[in-house]
């Protein structure tokens, strides 16, 4: 069972308290009704599914109930870092590349 750090609770808690919520940093258009079919396809269906670093959303479901973002390596399953919802994609990742 993974330990995940909730950036709101500022604590590492067991995976059981959390729920994955898909890829992060996919913004919903402010003009949703006016999106083209292609743009909607990109927004709704297309996901990066990388081998390696993924930016994804988690919810501290059985804790503070907040959604937040996490950077995880899909190969090692290691969490690189977590940060609050709405914060920008981190430009530097701690410990990556070592």
């Amino acid at each position: 069972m993974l330990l995940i750090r909730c950036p709101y609770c500022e604590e590492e808690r067991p995976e059981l308290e959390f729920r994955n919520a898909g890829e992060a940093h996919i913004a919903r258009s402010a003009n949703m009704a006016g999106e083209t079919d292609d743009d909607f396809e990109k927004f709704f269906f297309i996901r990066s599914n990388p081998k390696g670093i993924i930016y994804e959303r988690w919810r501290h479901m059985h804790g503070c109930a907040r959604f937040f973002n996490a950077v995880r390596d899909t190969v090692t399953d290691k969490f690189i870092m977590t940060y609050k919802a709405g914060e920008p994609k981190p430009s530097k990742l701690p410990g990556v590349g070592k």
Partner: protein
Amino acid sequence: MSGAFRIPSAGRLSQAKTARFSFDGQSYAGIEGDTLASALLANGVHLVGRSFKYHRPRGILSAGAEEPNALVEIKRDAARKTPNVRATVQELYDGLDAQSQNRWPSLSFDVGAVNDIASPLFSAGFYYKTFMWPKAAWKSLYEPKIRAAAGLGVSPDKPDPDHYSSRYAHCDVLVLGGGAAGIAAALAAAETGVRVILADEQAEFGGSLRFESGAKIDGQDGFAWAQAAVAKLAAMDNVRVLSRTTAFGYYAQNFVGLVERVSDHLKTPGRDLARERLWQVRAKRVVLASGAIERHMVFADNDRPGIMLAGAARTYLNHYGVAVGKNVGVYTANDSAYAAAIDLKKAGVNVAAIVDLRDNPTGPVIDEARALGIEINFGRAVIRVGGKLRVSSMTVQPKNGGGERTIPVDAILMSAGWTPSVHLFSQSRGKVAFNDETKRFVPGTYAQDCVSVGACNGTDGLSATLDEAYAAGANAAKDTGAKTAKGTKPKVDASESWSRGMLGAAPGAGADTTVKAFVDFQNDVTAKDIRQAVHEGMRSIEHVKRFTTNGMATDQGKTSNMHGLAIAAETLGKPIPEVGLTTFRAPYTPVTFGAIVSHARGPLFDPTRKTAIHPWAEAQGAVFEDVGQWKRAWYFPRAGEDMHAAVDRECVAVRKTAGLFDASTLGKIEVVGPDAAKFMELLYTNPWEKLEPGRCRYGIMLREDGFIYDDGVVGRLAPDRFHVTTTTGGAPRVMNHMEDYLQTEFPHLNVWLTSITEQWAVIAVQGPKSRDIIAPLVEGIDMSDAGLPHMSVREGKICGVPTRLFRMSFTGERGFEVNVPADYGQAVWEALWAEGQKHGAAAYGTEAMHVLRAEKGYIIVGQDTDGTVTPNDAGLDWAVGKKKADFVGIRGMARPDLVAKGRKQLVGIKTRDPKVVLEEGAQIVEDPKQAIPMKMIGHVTSSYWSENCGRSIALALVAGGRDRMGDTLYVPMPNGVIEVEVTGMVFFDETGGRLNG
């Protein structure tokens, strides 16, 4: 005397403590402290089972968890029958009842052994080549006959009456393995004061010190030192010592699963005692001290009972005081077998000869064996053995060919060397590295905060092991923030040292098709099978493994993997590291379902949710159905009524007078805040801004893809306050969906969401008399049609307690939903029930609720929709705000395929014969005479007998359904085609006049 092969002067068990046991109905005597295996061997019993595929007679190979052969059934009573228990692990208790497995009619005469003669038919890949066709053979031959003939134990056929427990634990340093290395590491860590857990799978700590008679530590015999050290550890407050505890899985972030066998070794386990305890340990540092496992020699008929690992024979002698034979032979490519021969010889057992495959090895143990007068043959191989149910002789030949000599023996001790136990290290995702010099895979690159010490790290010799382990324990503690250790490192006074062995098949186990030189005993895989797999095109070791099943039995190839790999590498002509090792997976040894499941079974498997009114329904004799975790009253049968009679009566009562229905399970969410209406606009298709406080609206929630996600009636209590209802099953996901959008997409909105499902009990009162029933109990609410019109909500009091009174209907009748704080739910229900009795009202359950809403064509999300249905498909376009600029699903709904013609639309269906009730899920076709497979144009989503309509009614999703009104379609069923007519969705009171009736 506890067995003719017991040597009173040897071993550590007290002869005074006799324990009787039975094996295959025969009674024997053992000693407390024995394993079942040692007790059988003490009685001269080697034959304990039949093999998986060929039904070959099998004996005891090992003295530990790696045992592939000696699997038995242990029976305590009719329900407590455990198959595939390793006799080498099962501790003896007085009265133990064991049975051999996979034989009929008896262990010594087994009909299935015909497989051994027919073995050319069952060679590698047999299943893949055979279980193909004809299709019919699956039912008649493959499953019932061939598969039944294979296999090991029989599953218990009664529910498990035992209980299991489960604990979480945290520690600084977790030490896995309680041999010399593990104990030293635990001592070093514990002396710094950090929290330490030390676990070992055996009943007693000591590991290989159990048999290493040459080890002396701190002036004591090695095993005695181990006991003293563990006693010292157990007495420390910061240390937890777990014996009989196997670390079976190493998971992410130093999370380790252990199973403690709490009572399997007890004669009469107390009823309050768990059978096993699952430990889930999170450790800051893990020290792996899992030791090494001895490999057998791969030679012809090396599976005959009486042929066993040399280290095992030594354990039986030095720990249990049991000689495995009276006249033993030794076949080895490794020094450690000499130590076994020496110990047996000194105990008075005749050692007929040592056959050593190596040419001219030298060393102290070889000298000592020679000095004891034991015959030693270098450069020779055992090419044949005599005996079937028990080995009787070994035939020896120079390994490069030459004259044969047959030596009578009653046991053969073998050793091809020791394999470091890297299972847990590999499970931690560490990468092993091949040491070319010692021909061993040892821990290479670490993936987690752990360290390997001793034999599992490829460290040879007791001194080096203790040095390494003590330092590692101290370092691990230091890494967790500990200060320097106060203790002193154990001092090795004497130890044994062995040189390495061999991998792969020995000479004489050649390509000859009749030779069975076993690599994997448990899955009956021979050296020939592995060569054949390579010849048939398997190149990857993972393919060789699956084709031959080598290493895939419950012992997970503990003795066989390295041999299999070496034979494959040799056949492929590649070096071993290039061929690579197969993946080690959890569990290390089999784990019972009981230990994993623990208390989470039966009623405790999943939480049960009950409404405030549940006790009343129960007292009325309601039949309940499960809806998610909820128990809902399904129907209320009266004396002599079956389900149909009860449901018909309930449905009629609602339309004739009134009915009471417990709707408490409906999901309820309060949406509050200055931006509550804006938020509702975005989350639901409907317009909300202009909904007046005190009014209600039926809302539809979509996913972003435009499909219906949930629905429910929403009441606006105040400009900034909505009381939202959801489907019973959808409540948690709707809440999650709302929170997701509020927190991440619309965080600028000032809104609070609160789940109030459990706070409000809901009593639906529906029917022409509903107002008459409620009105006398209500204070502060104008109950007239003008004061409380259909689709409105008021706050006031009922029976003196606060209520949110909704005027709404899911039946098509005049209806109310009385929300009261859950604590008052049953009292208010009883008061309403008493009023209802004056009017002839009935309580109705979920089945009647379903029928009544279907009569009106009201949909149930999840029954009439399936995640691919749009509001338009469901005929709910009227509920979509046409002027809205945005809501979740607005764009998805407009995708080309979702607005295309010919989509499945929800319609009503009437059978031509009104008495026929369609099956829900039944497929609908246009032409019943077309060839199979027919083109299906839709399916039935809801179908009931409607007593109110006097006929069957159904809803269905049909392609282009709304353009087919009045058309005849067909529902082909196994016993005939049913003719149906497409209709509108409302079957009762089409004008809706009864809402105010």
